[in-house]
């Protein structure tokens, strides 16, 4: 991965391709690389849908190797949803295929002079770009089917947008195909699909035929470390048993039990219908209908937290909806029917929108009185409106904050314009610290990964004192930024947290790959570097500490059943990045 592919969509005479050595970005991958390029090359005050913004697609540092779990791809730009820097990442096959083609990143630049829509085909022989207006407004599943017809077995992976991306909606995602070439994995957050739409690119088809696995500097050490890493993942109760058996939706019952499950647009922490849409029920339903309760999203995944959801007649409906999706379209909208939620998941994937943002947008619309909470048919119709691009659909497609502005809703759960995920920050206040201060907007994956007791960033933290959550949020954000740069799935965090030998195995994998010792300090330094670039970009874009806040009602509106409010002070939030 020593080269970067730059495509100037606005070049005179049509899109121009330029391949260049990675140069000053050498050694970076995933989020570190997207952030470095956006931070350095994109004017922070530019319009996100304008010619100066760039869309950077970067596989992780370890993607394309035999390292387990290394199939995450990062997509970065200035976000049309938040107005700040954005890195949104996805599973699926594109990270592995793009990395094997030797590209550290694809950078889409400029704006096309016409309204033509382009497809890009990349294989070992080069890059072909062609206008294909027959693809206009095709949903993702139809689009990929057409690419398979056209490129046959050479269609190894696709990166695409649906109609929402073409319409430049702020909820628009970028789809990545899975092992079965289903466009079911998405870089969902922040409206990255709108930026791809603005560039006039509908789909990038990747073909790594004739390319081998990427080789580490020290193959023997790499192989040994990877073996230990896989053993660690397989032996841990979460990564070896819980996630494969029930998927991430196993959290529904747990969050509901502690009163931290936001329901009816963040009005209460428990949902009477939780058991009907739990991961346990979902897995049983999938198995009974001939689907799969465990399935990997890319080759090399050993956790296999996903699945395949069939309808009542036993036909494929969608991939297993994740916890965040089940919550966003389920409990948060008062919907307790798994088939309805699965249909919404499929429609989101097909039209190409972020399930978290869309679920929140529907919940805010219900709060505005456009439909009753619990009305699944209305929710499905709302998403169809988005896909068709009606006036209402455009408002919904703008995200939760857009709906709130259009209909005068005061209670809108967003930070920096981005809707909150499935954990109420009043019940779990530490995640509220991360929601408030992450450069990405409200993001549950921003503070994840390796806990402080492993990295000890900033020294020991007293886990019993409330002020400890400030330091922990900081440390987790640093660790997450680093993990996002490797291409590793964040679900490796559990085994790393509990098993020091598994964390060492990961460090050894990276070390063997680069041919030098890699330590926990190296992880910390990388994470800090990424966060510093992101915060610097946001500052230049006009963000101040006033943007690092939760909406006011989280401080004043008690959240049942525990009737707690968000108690972290502004002064404490301002300390998160004091390092």
């Amino acid at each position, binding site marked *: 991965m020593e080269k970067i592919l730059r495509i100037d969509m606005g070049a005179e005479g049509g899109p121009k391709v330029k391949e260049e050595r990675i140069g000053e970005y050498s050694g970076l991958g995933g989020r570190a690389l997207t952030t470095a390029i956006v931070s350095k090359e994109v004017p922070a005050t530019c319009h996100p849908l304008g010619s100066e913004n760039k869309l950077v697609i970067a596989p992780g540092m370890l993607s394309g190797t035999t390292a387990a779990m290394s199939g995450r791809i990062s997509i970065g730009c200035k976000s049309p949803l938040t107005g700040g820097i954005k890195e949104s990442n996805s599973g699926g096959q594109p990270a592995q295929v793009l990395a094997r083609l030797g590209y550290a990143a694809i950078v889409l630049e400029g704006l096309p002079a016409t309204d033509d829509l382009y497809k890009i085909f990349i294989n070992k022989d080069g890059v072909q770009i062609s206008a294909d207006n027959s693809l206009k407004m095709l949903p993702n599943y139809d689009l990929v089917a057409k690419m398979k017809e056209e490129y046959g077995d050479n269609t190894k992976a696709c990166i695409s947008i649906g109609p929402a991306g073409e319409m430049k909606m702020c909820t628009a995602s970028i789809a990545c195909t899975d092992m079965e070439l289903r466009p079911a994995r998405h870089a969902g957050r922040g409206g990255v699909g709108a930026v791809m739409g603005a560039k006039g690119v509908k789909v990038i088809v990747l073909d790594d035929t004739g390319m081998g696995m990427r080789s580490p500097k020290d193959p023997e050490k790499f192989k040994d470390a990877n073996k230990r890493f896989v053993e660690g993942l397989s032996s841990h109760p979460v990564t070896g048993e819980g996630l494969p*058996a*029930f998927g991430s939706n196993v959290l529904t019952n747990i969050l509901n*039990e502690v009163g*931290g499950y936001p329901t009816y647009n963040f009005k209460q922490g428990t949902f009477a219908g939780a058991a009907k849409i*739990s991961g346990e029920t979902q897995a049983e339903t999938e198995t009974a209908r001939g689907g799969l309760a465990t399935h990997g999203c890319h080759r090399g995944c050993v956790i296999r937290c996903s699945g395949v959801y069939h309808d009542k007649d036993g036909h494929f409906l969608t991939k297993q909806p994740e916890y965040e999706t089940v919550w966003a379209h389920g409990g948060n909208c008062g919907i307790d029917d798994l088939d309805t939620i699965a249909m919404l998941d499929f429609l989101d994937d097909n039209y190409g929108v972020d399930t978290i943002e869309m679920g929140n947008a529907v919940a805010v619309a219900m709060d505005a009185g456009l439909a009753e909470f619990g009305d699944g048919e209305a929710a499905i119709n709302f998403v169809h409106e988005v896909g068709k691009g009606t006036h209402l659909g455009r408002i919904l497609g703008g995200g939760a904050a857009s709906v709130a502005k259009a209909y005068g809703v005061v209670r809108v759960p967003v930070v920096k314009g981005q809707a909150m995920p499935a954990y109420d920050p009043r019940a779990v206040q*530490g995640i509220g610290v991360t929601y408030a201060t992450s450069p990405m907007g409200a993001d549950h994956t921003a503070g994840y990964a390796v806990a402080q007791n492993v990295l000890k960033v900033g020294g020991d933290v007293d886990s019993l004192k409330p002020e400890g959550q400030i330091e922990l949020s900081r440390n987790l954000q640093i660790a997450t930024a680093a993990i996002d740069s490797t291409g590793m799935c964040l679900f490796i965090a559990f085994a790393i947290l509990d098993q020091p030998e598994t964390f060492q195995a990961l460090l050894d994998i990276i070390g063997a790959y680069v041919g030098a010792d890699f330590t926990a300090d190296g992880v910390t330094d990388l994470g800090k570097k990424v966060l510093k670039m992101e915060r610097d970009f946001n500052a230049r874009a006009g963000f101040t500490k006033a943007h690092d806040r939760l909406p006011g009602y989280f401080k004043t509106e008690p959240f049942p059943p525990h009737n707690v409010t968000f108690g972290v002070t502004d002064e404490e939030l301002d300390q998160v990045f004091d390092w």
Partner: protein
Amino acid sequence: MSTAQGLEQLQGATTLSLELTAEKQESLFLLLQNGFFIEAFVGCTIKDFFLNQLGLSPDYVEARIQGIFLDGKPADDIDTAIIRDGAHLTVSGTMPGLVGIALRRGPLAVFRHTITHRETGDYDYKGKGIIKLKLLNLLMKEMGLELLKKGIYMNSSVLADYLGNLPADFWQECKTITMDGREVSAGLFQEGGWLPESKLVKFAVVPKNS
């Protein structure tokens, strides 16, 4: 539901037992995520309840029970947290996600410090009581059968709804169904119209050799 409120309901509960093979027993484990009532000796610690009333080993508790929630609050110290009469106790075997990690005992517990269970030590009663127990995810299978063999008290409408949705092959494999001491046919449940008058049903499984 405490003893005072609940003993009458327990005594008036319909009894129902199903004789099932090991394979079909598994079809019932999902029911346990809804929660059920059991008679217990209350006023004890959670640890004492696990070891001496459920018969779990200390190693099992340490290794397999990742999440413990008492009355909707994460209980970190099972040596001191007291199970009161009428308590709700939920146990989970896997806790993914950042919040999953935070809800376990451990360094991220501070993330949810405002909802953490804190024992006040002001409960003196020790004796017979009723608690609501809920088993989630991996623990449904691991702990469920022993409890079902002893018999659990389920909300009648929840149980009726669950049984009414079981597939025909489940009932074909069900050798004997006994309700209030009399043998009944599977059709009663398959038709979906079964709902006993009592609010609770004492529900039990009798293992059958396949």
